[in-house]
């Protein structure tokens, strides 16, 4: 027998309204009383997962999550800060490396020249031979730093660059030894022969104008073999010129022997061409100035020692 309207219970007639009202009342309860609904939600989510899961994966692949505008802005700011700090960090590392190198160079110079009273001063080059047609190098050091005319300029306290020709309060001009107007300089060629002690051959070099120096070396005989001591390609050439250069500059490296030929003026002598180890003395980035304790200025371009 079909149920009539009157035979249906109150609840079956009003099931929808009762359930809706119950849900509404539940929806107004405090959140701490609704935690159990999470447990009801889980099975429903699991039931739907076979359809929603692959679609969510596909959505994520086709359209990766984008940050909100605020997140994007914050992310951009963080990236800019990171780039700034990265740059400062790398700069600091470079500064530390330079300071360590400077300190090592100064220590090495002092050790190599214990009797020489100089204050090594490392300064950067402001304008080099490319900017100044004369080949003169402008250095950021002046009289306020104790620099005077004739102060010797080196690279790391080892390689001779030249000397100061003019100086003012904050800057000075250094003339490299390879410039034509630099004049001659006395040198000693350290001739190394296998099985024999190193011999020094005195000579005088003049700048050629192409970055090298050339000149004749003294004729000497080996006392044991009575054979002439001849320089070889690659032999070191150091400054030995007490008359024109201060004591702090003596024995600084001038370069290495690049070629040897009989001297055109004296067949008994050898003419050598010396090339500095630094390709362009007028293009160095910084120099070490040997600031002497007493005024040791020597007239620039003085004649070199004669062999």
């Amino acid at each position: 027998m079909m149920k009539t309207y009157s035979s249906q219970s109150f609840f079956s007639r009003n099931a929808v309204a009762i359930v809706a009202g119950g849900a509404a009342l539940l929806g107004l309860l405090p959140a701490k009383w609704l935690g159990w609904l999470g447990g009801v939600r889980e099975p429903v989510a699991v039931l739907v997962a076979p359809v929603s899961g692959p679609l969510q994966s596909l959505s994520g692949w086709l359209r990766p999550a984008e940050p909100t505008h605020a997140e994007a802005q914050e992310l951009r700011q963080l990236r800019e800060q990171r780039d700034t700090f990265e740059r400062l960090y790398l700069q600091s590392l470079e500064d530390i490396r330079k300071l360590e190198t400077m300190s090592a160079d100064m220590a090495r110079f002092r050790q190599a020249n214990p009797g020489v009273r100089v204050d090594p001063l490392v300064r950067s080059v402001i304008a080099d031979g490319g900017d100044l047609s004369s080949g003169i190098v402008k250095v950021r050091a002046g009289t306020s730093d104790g620099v005077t005319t004739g102060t010797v300029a080196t690279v790391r306290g080892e390689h001779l660059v030249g000397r100061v020709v003019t100086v003012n309060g904050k800057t000075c001009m250094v003339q490299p030894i390879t410039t034509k107007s630099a004049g001659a300089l006395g040198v000693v060629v350290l001739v190394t022969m296998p099985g024999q002690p190193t011999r020094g051959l005195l000579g005088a070099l003049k700048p050629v104008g192409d970055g090298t120096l050339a000149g004749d070396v003294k004729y000497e005989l080996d006392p044991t073999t009575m054979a002439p001591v001849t320089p070889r390609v690659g032999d070191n050439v150091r400054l030995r010129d007490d008359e024109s250069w201060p004591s702090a500059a003596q024995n600084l490296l001038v370069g290495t022997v690049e070629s040897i030929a009989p001297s055109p003026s004296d067949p008994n002598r050898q003419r050598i061409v010396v090339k500095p180890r630094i390709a362009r003395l007028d293009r160095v980035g910084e120099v070490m100035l040997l600031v002497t304790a007493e005024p040791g200025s020597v007239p620039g371009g003085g004649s070199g020692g004669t062999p």
Partner: protein
Amino acid sequence: MTWVGFALLTWVLLGLELGLRRMLEIGSTGIAPSFVFPLIALVAMAGTPGMVHRAALILGLLMDLLSPVALADGRGEVVVLGPCALGYLVAAHFMLNSRGLIVRRNPLSLGLMAMAGHAIAGILALFFLFIRKWIQGDVAIGAGAQLLAVLGSAVYTGLIAPLQGLVMIPLASTIGLQSLQQRRFARTR
């Protein structure tokens, strides 16, 4: 209506709703189409009143379970029963009373009904949450942005629903909605 067919269709559409929401959402606005609501519209266009109310209530409760509400101050989220359940119920009643004004077998009619019904359901759900916020003060609800999201979603649903209708209307018989099927010799109501 056969409840097994209805359950199957509900399962598929809930999966589409949850799975495609992120892909179809417009930016971060919260405006996304509903795949479940056109089913309510379809049932409302063809079912008996009792059938329509029960279907709307069931779908509304399921959506409440699967769409937890964020709590204020970032404390997490909570499942709140009631907003979608009541909203869908009222919207279904509205669609039930409006179905005489439309051509039922037309997918565009389905889109129009879905858009209007979804807007009503969304506004009611939002109102319910505001009542809750007024009483409990714990849910994170903002008036302007969420109302825009609700209305935008309704329009979006109305645009998607005709496409769904092209598939669902022919399948109406599987869930026992006979009145949407063309009868050869009977008068159309």
